């Protein structure tokens, strides 16, 4: 059985402003869960609460539970650094380290975890790059700077970097929003392959993308989880009127 995320009563603040108003949601194991909603609905905030990135912003606060299988990631004494080691993240705009080569980018997380042996690093880097469907394109250019690749390749590089440390969950925050359709298609294909071994949550503002890649979908509006269910059903017979309005394009 794979790993799942079980969110209970999650609230999040920026300073005094409450931006997530109590969310209960499951990110099912070995499946893709899409998080959709209009701008400002809290979907990015939600996903950043899962790997405890939200609290890195000064003044930001979280309450509630986020369970990785049976462990509460927000229990007192839990080290957020370790949480982020086990839950990988890919960001909206690809952010490879420009002063590092392709190889070093992918190896960055491994080195942080203490892996020093050259041979082990080479193995893991190749494995991660293959996993991210990037190996064939860069295998002769591993020494080139991370930013010398195209936009789509850079994003796959970031995926490889996240995969290299063997996370249990992969979070993706609008990973294709800065990419052209061809690059987007490549990444969606990649997600299809990854979900066999990994549990994925993806934030997207593109409903067609959500319909294409995910098994489950959650619709957020104004900080609340309005509806959650099987993707196919939600897009054909939404239960809540607000969901229906969003999906049919009446707003957002």
């Amino acid at each position, binding site marked *: 059985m794979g790993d799942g995320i079980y969110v209970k009563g999650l609230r999040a603040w920026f300073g005094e402003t409450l931006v997530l108003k109590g969310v209960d949601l499951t990110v099912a194991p070995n499946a893709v869960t899409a998080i959709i909603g209009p701008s400002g609905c809290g979907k990015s905030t939600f996903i950043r609460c899962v*790997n405890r*990135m939200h609290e*890195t912003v*000064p003044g930001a606060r979280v309450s509630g539970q986020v369970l990785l299988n049976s462990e509460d990631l927000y229990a007192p004494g839990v080290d957020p*650094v*370790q*949480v*982020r*080691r*086990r839950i*990988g*993240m890919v*960001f909206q*705009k690809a*952010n*490879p*380290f*420009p*002063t*590092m080569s392709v190889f070093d980018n992918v190896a*960055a*997380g491994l080195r*942080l*975890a203490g892996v020093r042996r050259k041979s082990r690093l080479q193995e893991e880097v190749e494995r991660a790059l293959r996993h991210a469907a990037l190996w064939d394109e860069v295998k002769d250019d591993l020494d080139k700077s991370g930013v010398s690749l195209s936009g789509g390749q850079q994003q796959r590089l*970031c995926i490889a*970097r*996240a995969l290299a*440390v063997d996370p249990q969950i992969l979070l993706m925050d609008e990973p294709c929003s800065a990419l052209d359709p061809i690059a987007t298609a490549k990444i969606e294909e990649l997600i299809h392959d990854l979900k066999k071994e990994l549990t994925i949550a993806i934030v997207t503002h593109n409903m067609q993308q959500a319909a294409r890649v995910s098994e489950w979908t959650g619709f957020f509006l104004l900080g609340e989880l309005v509806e959650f269910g099987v993707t196919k059903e939600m897009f054909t017979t939404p239960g809540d009127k607000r969901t229906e309005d969003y999906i049919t394009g009446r707003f957002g």
Partner: protein
Amino acid sequence: MAADSISGVGTADGLSLPPRAVSRGRSGLGDRVYRTLILASVWLVLLLAAGLVAALTWESWAAMRAFGLRFLVTSHWDPVAGEFGALPFIYGTLVSSLLALLIAVPLSLGAAIFLAELAPAWVRPPVAFLIEMLAAVPSVVYGLWGIFVLVPWLRDWVQPALGRSLGFLPLFQGPPYGIGMLAAGLILSIMIVPYITSVSREVLLAVPGSQREAALGLGATRWETTRIAVLRYGRSGLIGAILLGLGRALGETMAVTMVIGNRPEVSISLFAPGYTMASVLANEFTEATSDLYVSALVEIGLLLLVVTVLVNGLARLLVWSVGGPARGARG
């Protein structure tokens, strides 16, 4: 307003205007006068800069002709005999500046990293403010404090202790005068720390947040994030900040003159008195009796100008490579 000045509305960025009809009347004249005044100011500044270089070169010509490159490598400074070798001053400037860098760089970079990355939010503004105030203290005030506080401390405590413990090194030999190269290096380091710190801090702040997020997302601690995402990214800018500090140290005059001892000798020991290019200018310019003497001094000034311009130019290039050409208004 003249009737035929139909101004088009500016475009969205206000940068390009539609072609005007040949302006007649008062507004055309106004524009011409304005533009003339502005251009006059621009050219005045350029002229002054060019004049600076020209005047210095002209005045130092006699010395350059008389001594050539020997000027840079001989130590004999004898105004009476008309013999001028600038090596002690060049040596003194380099050694005091390098010593200052050695002390200042780790402290400045540490403080900059603290302020930009690791400090809690409430600490940052007051500390940054204090550091800026340090940069505003006039050189002569540093020198005053140097003479009456730093030098006695060195003479009575630090130098005897260094002499006892590390005296086998030629660096720490000789009588503990207090004044000398060590004092100059120390006071210079205090003076350049605020510059290196504030420029470094700006360089670090210019690193995009997405870089930090990438590291945090991989499960890096705060220091690891700073190390792999921020410091690496801002590397060249930090080197630029250090060079800016060097540039300041090279040209610093009053504080150094007041504590270095003003003896034109080359000596390995840090306890020995020395002399810098700026100091000899400060001390001897008004006493220069012969034309050759003045010329030799001006040549030292020219040398100082060239070196500081090169160092500062390189520094600026490096700092701009991280954040863009906006920085530098405060020098």
